[in-house]
């Protein structure tokens, strides 16, 4: 373990939250031993005393008199029941069906068309407000309805979320099964509309396990909903494109171990990882990205820099921004809590114990009114960066009490402001973020979830896919393992070391609490070609895409006849009329074969009235096309029949070896009713459950014919390997063909 990291684990554990009143850590540093006692729910009297003293101190500063709330035993038991149900689903995701959260055959997870999209309102949202919000969101709802077809849903009224409901209760009420998401039952992409008070974070976490979930919360600011909807539609219809530019911002405040860790062991390795497009065993980047110089510590992680990055400054505006810092924390009910909690504490803050001034942190109010953040996506690692729950989960685990840390759950002001100014989504953390959850106890970087999330976003995938494949998977796995560990520890206290348990617990909570603020189906509208928007070189540039063997014909080779498409001008004009307006002006077309072919129009959103109908235009081609579809359908059916036969017969694998003095005269058939004029010398029958029947070849003197036996064994191995590969490829082919048949026209 590097010496530097070693000291982090030797000394007290610190967390990424600073109290804005005291300048001290929001959660005082704890030794790993003390943390473990709290994790196990076994606080010592001293722990409790110091906890109460600390809270009283904060309460005294904020003149709060009701900070500690003790819940009844019945409510606590209800909470335990909630957790048991949730844990069951997490175990399923982690162990039984690790890869994709949707049912096989549902289609491409990244496509709303395949896996659907829905919005959930609270059932008790005032009707007038709900109608106004729906009206304001109409452009977005229309777009998603168009895309998802009959996989589009609005859950409102009786189908909306009821206060206090667990996810499984909600599902049961709606008749939706647990486990893998079936888009026909409930779409994969779910946008919650409402405050965390109306639809709690707990519900969002639970729903997010098997679905791509985001939240839109602008309170009763109806205009903000409309602006957001407008920005998403603009991004998805090609009206907004951004250069492929990413920025990384990570203060390392003086004397502050938490940000030293998050800057140098989260932000920096993440940045370095993304400069390599396709490292071994990593999700390869499909596009070249420009990474602005890393704004780390003294090198630019200041309030002023963040102002520029989030100010819509065209020279600086990144398509993706990653930040790692403290989030500012306030006592419950403090006048500034709702506006400023979760604000990003910049390099300007001099360090622990020093006053936190307003100019040291960046919050929603610091986003300029005229900032154009259209198309941006922001990933915030900071305590309370995405929001704050009403009750403290940490105190629940430690003391079985739920301390109120806010008057009610709320979404952080900064993500709200970013979305109002055009950002499409903010991925952030609810409640405390533990700085060392990306480093294992043995000093190994465990930042894979961050890497996967960023690479997925940089490949243009929806943000709901980016979180599912990274933090949701990590959460499912950690939670499943942690619950097993805690169970073992009840019986064997030496089962696991203190700081290993502390690490697992904090890593689990950390992974759970990443949420999307915004529509989970949005994806970054970065430029997909090398056109005029190609970013200029600034800072380090991502390396070339991996060599794909693009061969340039050398000059001395004979001229290869290039295939110039003949363009019929009437056809192009007609096509232009058929396709809705695009922001790209079309060049004039000449009738004769052109030297410089016109630019290919970018894929654009085709309005409903211009989509293909069931009956095509009659050029006589429609019938031929239908026959072609039938051929493909027949091919797919044939494949299905073959796979079906294979499934029936797959129970055993038979490998037989015969010999004959007259090979040419032998009729060979797998149908055992036909005579085979050869001698069966060896047989291996492998049953599906692994049972083996082996008949070995003997020579005339009853000894084993070793040579024949060796080659028979080799044939058995080859048969086993090849069967697995072949059937897998057949199944993949069947899936692709079904995908083709599913989409129109």
């Amino acid at each position, binding site marked *: 373990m590097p010496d530097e990291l070693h000291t982090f684990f030797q000394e007290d554990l610190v967390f990424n939250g600073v109290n804005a009143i005291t300048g001290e850590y929001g959660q005082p540093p704890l030794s790993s031993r003390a943390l473990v006692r709290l994790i196990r729910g076994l606080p010592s009297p001293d722990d409790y005393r110091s906890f109460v003293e600390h809270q009283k101190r904060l309460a005294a500063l904020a003149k709060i008199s009701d900070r500690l709330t003790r819940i009844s035993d019945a409510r606590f038991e209800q909470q335990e029941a909630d957790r048991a149900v949730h844990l069951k689903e997490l175990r399923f995701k982690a162990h039984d069906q690790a890869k994709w959260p949707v049912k096989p055959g549902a289609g491409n997870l990244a496509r709303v068309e395949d896996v659907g999209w829905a919005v959930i309102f609270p059932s008790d949202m005032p009707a007038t407000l709900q109608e106004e919000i729906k009206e304001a969101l109409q452009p977005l709802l229309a777009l998603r309805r168009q895309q998802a077809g009959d996989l589009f849903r609005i859950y409102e009224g009786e189908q909306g979320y009821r206060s206090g409901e667990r996810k499984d209760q909600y599902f049961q009420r709606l008749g939706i099964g647990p486990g893998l998401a079936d888009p026909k039952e409930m779409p994969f992409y779910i946008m919650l509309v409402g405050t965390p008070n109306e639809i709690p974070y707990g519900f969002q976490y639970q729903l997010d396990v098997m679905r791509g979930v985001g939240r839109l919360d602008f309170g009763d600011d109806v205009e903000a909903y409309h602006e957001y909807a407008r920005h998403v539609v603009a991004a998805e219809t090609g009206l907004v494109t951004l250069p492929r530019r990413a920025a990384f911002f990570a203060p390392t405040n003086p004397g502050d171990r938490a940000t030293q860790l998050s800057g140098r062991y989260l932000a920096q390795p993440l940045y370095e990882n993304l400069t390599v497009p396709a490292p071994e065993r990593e999700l390869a980047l499909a596009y070249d990205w420009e990474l602005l110089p890393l704004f780390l510590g003294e090198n630019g992680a200041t309030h002023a820099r963040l102002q520029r990055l989030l100010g819509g400054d065209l020279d600086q505006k990144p398509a993706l921004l990653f930040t790692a810092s403290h989030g500012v924390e306030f006592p419950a009910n403090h006048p500034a809590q709702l506006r400023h909690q979760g604000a990003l504490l910049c390099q300007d803050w001099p360090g622990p114990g020093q006053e936190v001034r307003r100019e040291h942190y960046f919050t929603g109010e610091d986003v300029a009114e005229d900032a154009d953040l259209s198309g941006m996506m922001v990933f915030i690692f900071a305590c309370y960066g995405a929001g704050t729950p009403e009750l403290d989960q940490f105190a629940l685990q430690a003391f079985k009490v739920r301390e109120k840390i806010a008057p009610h759950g709320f979404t952080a002001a900064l993500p709200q402001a970013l979305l109002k100014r055009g950002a499409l989504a903010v991925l952030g953390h609810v409640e405390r973020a533990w700085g060392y959850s990306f480093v294992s106890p043995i000093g190994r970087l465990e930042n894979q979830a961050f890497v996967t999330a960023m690479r997925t976003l940089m490949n243009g995938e929806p943000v709901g896919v980016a979180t599912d494949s990274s933090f949701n998977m990590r959460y499912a796995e950690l939670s499943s393992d942690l619950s097993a560990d805690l169970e073992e520890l009840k019986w064997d206290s030496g089962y696991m070391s203190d700081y290993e348990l502390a690490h697992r617990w904090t890593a689990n909570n950390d992974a759970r609490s990443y949420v999307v603020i915004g529509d989970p189906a949005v994806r970054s509208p970065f430029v997909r*070609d090398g056109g005029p928007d190609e970013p200029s070189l600034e800072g380090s540039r991502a390396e070339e895409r991996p*060599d*794909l*063997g693009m*061969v340039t*014909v050398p000059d001395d080779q004979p001229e*290869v006849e*290039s295939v*110039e*498409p003949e*363009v*019929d001008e009437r*056809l192009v004009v*007609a*096509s232009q009329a*058929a*396709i809705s307006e695009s922001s790209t002006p079309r060049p004039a077309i000449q009738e004769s074969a052109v030297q410089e*072919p016109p630019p*290919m129009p970018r*894929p*654009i959103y085709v309005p409903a*009235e211009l*989509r*293909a109908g069931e*009956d*095509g235009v009659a*050029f006589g*081609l*429609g019938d031929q*096309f239908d*026959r*072609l579809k039938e*051929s493909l359908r027949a*091919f797919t059916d*044939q494949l299905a029949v*073959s796979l079906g036969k294979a499934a029936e017969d797959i129970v055993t694998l038979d*490998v*037989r070896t015969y*010999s004959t*003095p007259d*090979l040419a005269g*032998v*009729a*060979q*058939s797998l149908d055992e009713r036909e005579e085979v004029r050869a001698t069966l010398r060896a047989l291996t029958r492998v049953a599906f459950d692994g049972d083996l029947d082996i008949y070995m070849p003997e020579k005339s003197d009853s000894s084993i014919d070793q040579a*024949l036996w060796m*080659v028979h064994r*080799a*044939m058995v191995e*080859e048969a*086993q390997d*090849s*069967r697995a590969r*072949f*059937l897998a490829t057949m199944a993949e*082919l069947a899936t692709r*063909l079904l995908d*083709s048949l599913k*989409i*129109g026209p």
Partner: protein
Amino acid sequence: MVAPAFTFSGMSLPEDRDPLGVWELDVPRAAAFAARTPTEDLVWRADLPAARSAAREVLQAGLARIAVREQQLNVAAQRLRYFDPVPAYREGARDPEAALLAATMALRSPAVALGARASEAPALETSPEAQAAYRDSIIQCETLLAQFRQLIQKIARMETRVGNRLVARSIVDWTGDVQTTWLAELTPADMQDHLDTVRLALASRCALLRLLVIVTSGALGLAIKAQVPGGQFLLLPAVYQYVCDVLKALEALPGGVPEGWQ
């Protein structure tokens, strides 16, 4: 004329050519198996020289080639994933991407026209040439599907001849059951030869299926990127040709694959 070492019959392929570059497609022979006619099964046949070392060399070369082809198919699949109509179009030029784009462009307009509403009188016209290109594509697509359908309809048989002497035959059915008949008194070396023939044939069968998976996925992806209604079917022949062109282009590289793929 030297007879090819590896021949394959019972199935046709576009241009009567094995895209893997290992097997020579054979015209249907007279029945070698009394029980079934040759057209019912796929027959993969290795004709090896009598000299032991030469026979091994031929087989090793075939196995090595198929291994490289499998890698090359991965490269082709990734190139298809990266394929972006716009820069390919602007760069123009002389590579498989340009040909694929040209085929896509040729299909796009009639396909879009076909997708318009039929309730009105056709507001769009297409030229006879565009219609012909569209029809050709449909025919080629049907042919390609019919050809590959044989791959999944028929059982695979393998034969090995060494110095014109038939030494072994194998049949592999759908579930992977294998039945092999050896000429009695064969040497272990001869047995190894047939084992390698079986390996080569099974790997080739899988690679051809894999090629079809890549072509199908590629056509679907391209149909979406380039907005060609029905392109997931219509572009199958063009994408098949593209993959073959990429495989051919990769032959020019040392080791047959780009650096980093080895």
